[in-house]
């Protein structure tokens, strides 16, 4: 702990700290250009040089360790002279004529002003050059302002671990290059924008995709962010996409969110201010012209004698059947011609926005979809919705109503909505899309450890874990910021084991890649456990002290020798052994999984087997040995936590317990009997012919595209007596609604979200919702009051106070505590409690404090390939899109990157089928058929195909198998049998001759 003096101030710093650290600790601003927190120090700009007493030369404060009794002068004559020298040298190749008189535009120009350096260029040296990105949809370069600080190079290499950028050439010819050929696509760019974030001059900047008012008052289409004049305000928000929970700063100008900026890297945020392409460039859907700005009521509804009635005749006058409209069913559209480009044109031409046009013009909601609706007032829609909900409750009983809540909405909104249906309607038919993602994880974790969330934190995986075992999670695409953290962990020296049927990016970086046949995870994991027991690598002390029923597992895994597991899974026995040993030896192994394990008809079994592996090796309850089911949506964890699932209230308190029911009923001011003690229906049970549900309220979900067997779902929703949808856009589901309530996007409301590591974070309102659209909380409050449930809240903060009162592990949570920091990881037991970064260090939250082993037998997936349907279909996400595409397909940058549906097909299979890259194929299953274009990819194994779930015009869920897991009722999205055939048509014929050539190129 050296003690030194910086500019006369005495400061003690930790060992290894630099002079710069010491100066920063006492708020002395030493100028830096190449230095950036958390990036490797390269010390190349030489502007931070300071004087140290007794040292004849200036020293680089960023790279020199502070030493005992050092006396540092940061603004000595020599230091200042050097800084002026550095700045004037940099200015010699900088477009100084662009520096605004009396102002500055960036970090560098700020320093020029601070040190009063003349900006006349004397040397006649040319402006700097470098690789430009002239036609890039979002990231642009202006290398004349590059000062070669190389922050971007290191941000790309060391934060995002991608390595697109580098310095080429030497001397004064040195320049920043994009890959070897200037093509970001070839260099593996993911458009995360980390380079934009760190650039001190705006040489690398982004494009603001919407029209903005420029400094001169004119509206400018697609402005460079570096030219954006001062914004009105910056508001801290939480990214609306995945479960990593990145904090982002929204920049508001003219009441429009014009730009996303990173929080400062040293702030306490789960993402250290990093984002992925979606977080930084994918939030412009908020301003999309498709946004619903006024409530809509289906034509045919009218008010007669004080009551709303539906006149089918009037509705049918336009030629539509009940709930019909002038559109194709999803199945019809999926078979149709794709108007959009078949594959990413940027693949072939890095400079080709031209052929694409402006994605904003490819409007996702066709005009005709609005035709069956008329614009209405809020009073009308509220009255109609309240009337129909109470009518159905009173005539058909509360069980005839159900609500789909939203993993995209805040905790407060979700809490109030389940409160409305439980307390106001009297039904537990409350569920949301967790059913389709991690319900089987929750079922297995509840059974084994009575828990429903991750045991640890993301940052321990990054910094502590020795072994990282990832199963069925394409983290670098689905949770890119966490994916980068994992890549950093591997760089640090952690061993990575990936189990995934596809050779995803992490698999390519893994030390061991287990590539099982989809759906055979139980055999794989049992085989690993078999070998661990055979080697005696299990943690006997942990098993004895912390668990019971181990014998059930010992017996269950006995038959699964690595050889037998190899036969079932297709993974070589040797690899299974190596993975097992590596994992068991740890010493700290983190276990991460996602949809690849859960979306199976045996999803609960699969997760249970994984939990057996975790428990048998004691890889839980220690810092570094984390168990993390990676959550898909920004608030899927929170929505479940606040009771948006049919069997529990907040904090997973069972609805079957009368005492707990009493607590909630009394809090809500309703009689206990109002709320049934029976568990409600789940998403997948509601959308069934046999379900009693006649009326539905849907907030921010699009089940018609996200449910398995879309045709069935579409048909089912049309048959409802009443459907109300609260959403941002007229989605595939909303088009069938009686009432459409325009809600608010994430930027338009204040609320809290829970990320995948139990971190509750506060997101602030940046702007008002457009037109007559309202905050979702406001809508729910009014509706609750209208159906007779007293709901007196004026703000989401007040709602959080009620949640905290009824939720033991959130007792210490309040908006005031969450404001301006990294949030709190629950359990937060009281107002002083600091939160919990990892759980289960001494006991599990079960009755006896012990976890339970559940031995599991392997069962094959419900539908396997056969002669008729020889391919195995796998579904999932892409980097640039999100779920049913409601948001991402309305984002300029994201839609430009992935404009249309594709099927990933192994080139060898493609050759057999006689199709090439970009050709259209028909993919069919026993349930449906879609036309889709081929993307040749060796990521998929032979006889397997992968189709992302985001596209209405080729909806993969037309094909998927609705077979359910018996415990969690999660459908088998990940495995079904399909046939792939070349789509016939003249276009395809013409392509045939070029096929051979293309295949040899792959």
């Amino acid at each position, binding site marked *: 702990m050296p003690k030194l003096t910086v500019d006369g101030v005495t400061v003690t710093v930790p060992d290894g700290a630099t002079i710069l650290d010491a100066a920063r600790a006492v708020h002395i601003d030493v100028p830096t250009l190449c230095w950036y927190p958390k990036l490797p120090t390269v010390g190349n700009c030489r502007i931070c040089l300071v004087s140290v007493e007794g040292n004849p030369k*200036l020293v680089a404060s960023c790279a020199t360790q502070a030493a005992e009794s050092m006396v540092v002068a940061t603004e000595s004559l020599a230091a200042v002279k050097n800084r002026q020298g*550095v700045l004037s040298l940099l200015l010699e190749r900088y477009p100084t004529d662009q520096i605004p008189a009396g102002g500055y535009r960036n970090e560098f120009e700020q320093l020029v002003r601070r040190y009063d350096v003349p900006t006349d260029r004397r040397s006649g040296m040319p402006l700097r050059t470098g690789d430009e990105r002239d036609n890039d949809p979002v990231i642009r370069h202006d290398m004349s302002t590059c000062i070669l600080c190389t922050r971007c190079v290191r941000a790309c290499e060391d934060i995002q671990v991608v390595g697109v950028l580098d310095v080429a050439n030497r001397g004064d010819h040195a320049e920043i290059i994009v890959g070897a050929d200037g093509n970001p696509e070839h260099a593996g760019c993911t458009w995360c924008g980390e380079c934009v974030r760190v650039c001190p001059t705006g040489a690398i900047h982004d494009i603001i995709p919407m029209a903005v008012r420029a400094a001169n008052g004119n509206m400018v289409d697609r402005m460079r962010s570096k030219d954006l004049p001062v914004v009105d305000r910056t508001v801290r928000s939480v990214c609306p996409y995945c479960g990593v929970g990145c904090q982002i700063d929204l920049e508001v100008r003219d009441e429009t969110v014009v730009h996303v900026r990173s929080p400062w890297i040293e702030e306490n945020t789960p993402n250290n201010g990093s984002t992925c392409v979606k977080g930084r460039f994918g939030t412009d859907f908020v301003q999309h012209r498709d946004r619903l700005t006024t409530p809509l009521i289906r034509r045919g509804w009218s008010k007669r004698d004080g009551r709303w009635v539906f006149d089918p005749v009037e509705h049918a006058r336009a030629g539509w059947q009940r709930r019909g409209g002038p559109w194709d069913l999803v199945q019809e559209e999926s078979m149709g011609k794709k108007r959009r480009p078949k594959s990413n044109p940027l693949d072939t031409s890095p400079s080709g926005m031209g052929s694409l046009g402006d994605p904003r013009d490819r409007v996702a909601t066709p005009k005709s979809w609005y035709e069956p609706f008329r614009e209405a007032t809020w009073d009308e829609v509220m009255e109609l919705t309240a009337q129909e909900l109470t009518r159905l409750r009173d005539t058909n009983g509360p069980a005839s109503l159900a609500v789909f809540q939203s993993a995209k909405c805040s905790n407060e909104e979700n809490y109030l909505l389940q409160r409305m249906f439980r307390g106001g309607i009297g039904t537990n038919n409350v569920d949301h899309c967790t059913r389709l993602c991690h319900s089987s994880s929750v079922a297995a974790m509840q059974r084994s450890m009575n828990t429903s969330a991750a045991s640890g934190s993301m940052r321990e995986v990054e910094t502590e874990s020795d072994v990282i075992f990832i199963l069925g999670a394409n983290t670098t695409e689905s949770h890119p910021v966490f994916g980068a953290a994992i890549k950093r962990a591997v760089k640090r020296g952690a061993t990575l084991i990936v189990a995934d049927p596809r050779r995803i990016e992490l698999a390519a970086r893994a030390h061991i890649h287990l590539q099982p046949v989809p759906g055979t995870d139980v055999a794989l994991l049992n085989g690993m456990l078999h070998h661990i027991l055979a080697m005696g690598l299990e943690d006997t002390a942990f098993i004895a002290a912390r668990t019971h029923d181990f014998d059930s597992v010992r017996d269950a895994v006995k038959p699964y020798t690595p050889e037998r597991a190899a036969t079932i899974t297709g993974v070589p026995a040797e690899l299974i052994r190596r993975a097992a040993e590596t994992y068991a030896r740890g010493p700290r192994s983190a276990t991460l999984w996602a949809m690849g394990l859960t979306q199976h008809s045996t999803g609960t079994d699969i997760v249970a087997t994984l939990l057996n592996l975790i428990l048998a090796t004691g890889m839980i309850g220690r810092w570094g040995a984390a168990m993390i089911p990676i959550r898909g949506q920004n608030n899927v964890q929170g929505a479940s936590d606040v009771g948006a699932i049919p069997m529990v209230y907040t904090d997973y308190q069972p609805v079957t317990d009368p005492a707990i029911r009493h607590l909630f009923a009394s809090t809500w001011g309703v009689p206990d009997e109002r709320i049934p003690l029976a568990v409600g229906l789940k998403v997948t049970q509601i959308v069934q012919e046999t379900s009693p549900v006649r009326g539905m309220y849907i907030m921010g979900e699009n089940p018609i595209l996200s449910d398995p067997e879309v045709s069935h779902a579409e048909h089912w929703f049309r048959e409802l007596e009443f459907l109300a949808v609260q959403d941002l856009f007229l989605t595939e589901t909303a088009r069938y609604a009686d009432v459409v309530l325009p809600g608010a996007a994430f930027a338009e409301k204040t609320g809290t979200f829970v990320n995948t590591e139990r971190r509750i974070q506060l997101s602030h309102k940046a702007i008002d919702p457009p037109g007559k659209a309202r905050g979702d909380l406001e809508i729910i409050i009014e509706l609750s009051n209208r159906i007779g449930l007293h709901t007196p809240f004026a703000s989401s903060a007040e709602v959080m106070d009620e949640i905290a009162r009824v939720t033991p592990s959130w007792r210490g949570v309040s908006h005031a505590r969450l404001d301006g920091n990294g949030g709190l990881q629950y359990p937060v037991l009281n107002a002083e409690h600091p939160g919990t970064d990892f759980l289960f260090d001494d006991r599990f939250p079960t009755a006896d404090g012990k976890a339970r082993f559940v031995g599991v037998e392997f069962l094959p997936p419900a539908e396997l390939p056969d002669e008729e349907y020889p391919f195995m279909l796998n579904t999932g996400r892409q980097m640039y899109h999100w779920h049913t595409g409601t948001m991402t397909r309305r984002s300029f940058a994201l839609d430009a990157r992935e404009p249309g549906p594709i099927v990933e097909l192994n080139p060898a299979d493609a050759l057999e089928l006689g199709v090439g890259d970009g050709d259209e194929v028909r993919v069919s299953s026993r349930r449906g058929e879609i036309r889709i274009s081929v993307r040749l990819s060796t990521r998929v194994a032979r006889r397997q195909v992968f189709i992302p779930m985001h596209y209405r015009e080729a909806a993969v869920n037309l094909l998927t198998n609705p077979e359910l897991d018996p415990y969690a009722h999660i459908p088998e999205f990940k495995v079904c049998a399909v046939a792939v055939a070349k789509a016939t048509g003249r276009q395809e014929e013409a392509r045939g001759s070029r096929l051979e050539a293309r295949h040899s190129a792959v």
Partner: protein
Amino acid sequence: MGFPFKPHPRESTVLSKHFGEAEARTLDGWKVRGGYRALEQALGMDPVAIQNIVKESGLRGRGGAGFPTGLKWSFMKLGDGKPHYLCCNADESEPGTFKDREIMRWTPHALIEGCAIAAHAIGAETAYIYIRGEFTEPLEVMERAVAEARNAGVIGPNAMGSGKRVDVWVHKGAGAYICGEETALMNSLEGKRGNPRIKPPFPAAAGLFGMPTTINNVETLAAVPHILVNGGAWYKNMARADNPKSTGTKLWSVCGNVSRPGNYEVQMGFPFREFLYDLCGGPPRGRTFKAVIPGGSSVPIITIAEAEAAFMDYEGMVAVGTMLGSAGCIVMDDAQSIPRQVARLARFYAHESCAQCTQCREGTAWTTKILERIVAGDGTAEDLDTLLDLADNMTGKTICVLSDSCAAPVVSGLQKFPDEFKALITRKTVHTVPAIVA
């Protein structure tokens, strides 16, 4: 003086004794000449004992900095459980220097032997010889010799039957001057861009692949076997009587306007005047010496008067305001234009700057631009101030000393030959060559 000429009688040939003898390149030929006796002896010794002998000899780094070799070796913490590495810096790129080239061409086994001894002395099992990309012939010779030595078991897993592993690998550079800087060399060896690293950490703490590393010049390592065989005292005695700090023999590469350019091996402290006129044969007929850059292009220029008064060792060169450097002696006669020579040097540094540090990247380029403008007769008086300003900016402020090296000849040239610069500026004319004095 090196092949094809016979050595001058006043030379002390230790390293250059076998230059020109083709047979010395082979293992057998080398053994006949006493080769590998030192290695055999060293492998039976305690590493610290070897270090002590080298310390006693007073051997200092021949790459330019002149750091005591034995002391450098003793920084390597023996038995720390980490792999140690020896790097041999054979990236001889300093303009005017060509001594290592001759060592490798003629006595490759001397270098291999030196590497093996040094590796053993610092607890390393692996030595890398990083050879300059342009050295095609030395590379071939070295690779052949290493293969021969490895096949004969002289080096390898059981070097000379000692049970100790000493591997020597030859790695070819790709033509960057900066890779002769020790940390850039390590980056380059690791497969990275050859940018110098920030020091500390010094190589002895974290060098090649982040492990403790010692890096020595070819000539330094080639001298080690002789020291081991003949003893530290023998080497130490080859010095100027009044300066025991510089010992042994030194190879001088002489080029430029002398009658007999080439490599000369003389004892430390040799009088420069006699060296220039007797050994090198003085200026070309009818010319007079004007200036000397005695230590490779990076050191300050001195006038011939200063040179004539100097002694050829580390301290002797410092005494006249320059440095021994790599002993690449560039001699200029009265026909040479100093501004033009300086401009040429600056151009070299601008081309070779790795482009990390601002001062170097921009400073070398701007300096070159100004100097070339002056040489072309388009300079202004203000340019001279700018040059000095720039030089000040470029000195002592960067990660490595490349920019200092660029500034040194500029500043010394301006100081010692200001009239030549001023003449070009005021007369707006190119340099005129004086007539030959009969």
